[in-house]
């Protein structure tokens, strides 16, 4: 008995040991194309293999019984198949489905320039924001090298697709910046309040943006501040116009950066030719503090606060009949605070809470007039994004804006005190659905109520994108955009309603190997614009919502970082056709801020031997219109075209020392922004006028940036402008 038993046992073991199952097959994608190198293995065992270049695989195993065969390949959904292993040969052909990946899927690009993160298809990076020659280290200056914008040299603000500068809003980490620009004298260029080095990412939307953003007729600029700094450091910047010292200290999961800045243009202005007579050159001092703290696994709390004081006095020619020149003095105080929290509440739920507070005061004195203007604003916002599946997400949230504007005007004969407070409450919701990785749709709506205007409005938004090939796509956006009228009208009336613009945007984008082409067509339909009817400005009855207008155009963008070694350039062209009837316009006319053709080329080159980054920027804007009250035709005059060639050079002197120099308008083009006219005519019935010129024809800056760290090897490379 015994031997037989043993014999059977032995043969069984033998069978087990020597029976080998061969699993063979081919791994393909859905269209049948072979996937080379797929991973093929039996789950829970060490038996596995990889496919060859034709997708074929052979897996030999001594295991018997039921096993799961897993086939996986990067970028595809893994497939699992149950197999009965009995020592024979099994043929298994596996088709893998492409996995859905939001990072590589189609994105909505109509109207949007996105910068930041490591995606390939970005148009302009945060680095570009600061290395564009001619931007003079100003965020808004850099954006003016993108299509859809019009350079207004007498303003410096953003004018987007036929929209006025008030129609653009700036958000930092989700909350509104009520006063994003420095105060400036009338007809002189200003710049943004914020240092571009603060930001790691930027989304500049020139139309058709998400329902999350309201109170902007033309564009939103979304700035995201840097996350955690890398190490403790001290930065010293000495510029021809001022100096800055900033210190960063890290602790566990947190960091703080404090900075002090002092700028004074007096020495610079005394050495260079100026078009105006400055009695007191612009002088400013700023203190800022930013704090970062990681909370939990995914949360990040950010806080930023700054206090800025600046002042200048400029002598202005008085063009009123019999007037003599007078000093225009402006002193500004700006307090700004911004806080945000971002994080995940569970796997599928992400939350963003943001708040901002602004207290801005302008003290203006000229001739015999004193004007005090104060803006106190706050914004609270909370938004939640819920990811039902990778392909379907819902965003909703609410926000609250409050703004108090007061203006006090003292003239020799009279005094005016006016103010208003407007509270706006808003709610928004939006769904984003990917039908496939090639097709995405975003539908949303926004409701806003203003308690001062007693108006309730609805803003539906729709955008969609379709990927035609691996590297190119079409995108469409449509929506209604509402915005409360400008402060200067709300001071005197609340009998008007928000203004509205409807956007239609169609864009095509193709991005191959660091070359990007983008073509965008758009149409904007302005309604309910505020118009004055000739009555006294302080009477509520002088204002109506009867204005209207349109803007349509074509934007082209080409960027190539590939063709020229160590070189990078982009070209923007915008064609704009716009007319409107608003404010004090007697009829429908082209507004002063619009120019038909805008052209810009930016070039940057890294010179290895010289350890230098050199940059050039050429800009052209076709002549804009302006109004001459002596002429019967409204806005019938044409100013000179705007032209400027700007150069910059950054030199890495030591590993922690950067020298920088820049000059604008190297060619010395004459730029003039029309003329300003007296409000009353002289004895001959003529309105006297003076040319509006830039502050100077050319601007130079030289700077030295020094970084000190414990390790002594960091630098301010990101400060190369």
């Amino acid at each position: 008995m015994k031997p037989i038993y043993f014999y059977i046992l032995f043969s069984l073991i033998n069978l087990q040991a020597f029976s080998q199952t061969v699993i063979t097959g081919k791994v393909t994608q859905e269209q049948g194309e072979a996937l080379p190198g797929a991973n093929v293995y039996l789950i829970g065992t060490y038996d596995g293999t990889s496919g060859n270049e034709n997708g074929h695989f052979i897996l030999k195993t001594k295991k018997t019984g039921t096993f799961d065969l897993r086939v996986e390949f990067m970028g595809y959904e893994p497939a699992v198949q149950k197999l009965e292993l009995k020592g024979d040969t099994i043929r298994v052909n596996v088709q893998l489905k492409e996995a859905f990946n939001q990072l590589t899927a189609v994105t909505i690009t109509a109207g949007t320039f996105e910068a930041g993160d490591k995606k390939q298809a970005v148009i302009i990076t945060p680095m570009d924001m600061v290395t564009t020659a001619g931007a003079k280290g100003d965020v808004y200056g850099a954006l003016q090298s993108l299509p859809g914008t019009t350079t207004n040299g007498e303003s410096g603000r953003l004018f987007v697709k036929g929209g006025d500068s008030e129609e653009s809003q700036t958000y930092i980490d989700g909350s509104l910046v009520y006063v994003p620009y420095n105060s400036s004298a009338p007809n002189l260029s200003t710049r943004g309040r914020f240092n571009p080095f603060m930001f790691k990412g930027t989304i500049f939307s020139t139309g058709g943006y998400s329902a999350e953003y309201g109170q902007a007729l033309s564009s939103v600029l979304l700035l995201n501040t840097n996350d955690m700094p890398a190490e403790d450091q001290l930065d010293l910047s000495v510029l021809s116009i001022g100096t800055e010292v900033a210190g960063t200290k890290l602790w566990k999961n947190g960091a703080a950066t404090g900075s002090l800045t002092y700028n004074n243009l007096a020495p610079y202005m005394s050495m260079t030719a100026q078009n105006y007579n400055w009695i007191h050159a612009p002088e400013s001092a700023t203190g800022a503090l930013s704090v970062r703290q990681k909370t939990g696994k995914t949360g990040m709390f950010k806080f930023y606060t700054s206090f800025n004081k600046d002042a200048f006095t400029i002598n202005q020619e008085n063009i009123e009949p019999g007037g003599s020149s007078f000093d225009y003095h402006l002193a500004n105080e700006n307090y700004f605070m911004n806080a945000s929290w971002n994080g995940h509440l569970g796997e599928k739920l992400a939350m963003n809470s943001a708040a901002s507070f602004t207290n801005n005061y302008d003290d203006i004195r000229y001739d015999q007039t004193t004007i005090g203007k104060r803006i106190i604003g706050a914004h609270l916002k909370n938004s939640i994004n819920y990811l039902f599946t990778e392909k379907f997400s819902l965003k909703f949230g609410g926000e609250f804006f409050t703004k108090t504007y007061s203006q006090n005007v003292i003239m020799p004969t009279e005094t005016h005190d006016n103010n208003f407070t407007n509270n706006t409450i808003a709610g928004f919701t939006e769904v984003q659905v990917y039908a496939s990785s090639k097709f995405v749709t975003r539908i949303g709506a926004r409701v806003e109520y203003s308690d001062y205007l007693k108006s309730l409005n609805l803003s539906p938004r729709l955008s969609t994108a379709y990927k035609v090939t691996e590297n190119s796509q079409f995108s469409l956006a449509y929506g209604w955009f509402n915005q409360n009228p400008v402060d200067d009208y709300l001071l005197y009336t609340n009998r008007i309603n928000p203004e509205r613009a409807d956007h239609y945007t169609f864009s095509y984008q193709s991005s191959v190997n660091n070359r990007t082409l983008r073509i965008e067509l758009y149409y904007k339909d302005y309604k309910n614009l505020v118009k004055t009817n000739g009555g006294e400005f302080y009477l509520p009855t002088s204002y109506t919502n009867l204005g209207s207008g349109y803007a349509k155009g074509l934007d082209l963008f080409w960027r190539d970082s590939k063709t020229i070694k160590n070189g990078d350039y982009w070209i923007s062209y915008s064609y704009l056709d716009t007319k409107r009837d608003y404010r004090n316009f007697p009829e429908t006319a082209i507004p002063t801020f619009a120019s038909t053709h805008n052209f810009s080329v930016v070039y940057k080159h890294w010179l290895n031997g010289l350890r230098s980054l050199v940059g050039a920027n050429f800009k052209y804007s076709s002549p804009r219109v302006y109004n001459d009250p002596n002429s019967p035709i409204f806005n019938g005059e044409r100013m000179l075209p705007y032209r400027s060639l700007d150069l910059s050079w950054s030199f890495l002197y030591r590993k922690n020392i950067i020298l920088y120099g820049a000059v604008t308008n190297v060619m010395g083009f004459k730029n003039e922004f029309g003329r300003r006219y007296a409000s009353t005519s002289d004895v001959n019935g003529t309105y006297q006028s003076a040319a509006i010129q830039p502050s100077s024809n050319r601007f130079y800056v030289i700077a030295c940036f020094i970084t000190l760290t414990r390790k002594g090897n960091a630098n301010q490379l990101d400060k190369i402008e």
Partner: protein
Amino acid sequence: MKKITLSLAVLFVSLVSMAQKPEFLQTMGETLGQFSTCKNAADFQALGNKFQMIADVEKAEWLPVYYQSYCYIIMSFLEPTDATKKDSYLDVAEKSIAKLIELVPNESEVYALQSFYFIGRLVVNPMERGQEFSGLSGQAVGKSLAIDPANPRAKLLKLQGDIGAAPYMGLDPKSFCPQAKELLANWDNFKPKSSIHPAWGKDQAEGIVKGCQ
């Protein structure tokens, strides 16, 4: 009685793990041996696949995940032009490194690997990513060296980073030669914890020293 049961249980558990370990060790050893035969991205992908498979069986072991990630980083360096492909390899490595940090948050080798991964990201587009990723890579090396100041791979990565940045900083890359020679001379003094623990990098150190002559 209780004691006996307990000791029996302990014995059983250790027997089982003993029984499993040899297969794990053997497979790991065999797979690691294949590194020397890898010539191109496809070879590294096949190897990465194998480590992925082992990781799938041995869910508590960090080394298979480590090597899988390492393979994908190497693949990104081997891809000649396609930036999207490079990034997609690095996306795989990124996920694995996140897993590693969860598995063994205090392992010097993991942060050295993370530093290597950041260099991979940097190389895809040095003009745009240079600043951010050289910082991140330096931070990761710092973490690695803080845990184990003797880790030769961390030292190597730091050295490579310094040498790579030298031309931009106005320094002579050769000024790092003494450091490189010292690193190579002491390389074998560092004993990996086991035969399957990370041991790579000596070739690269040799390469740097060779370049010095």
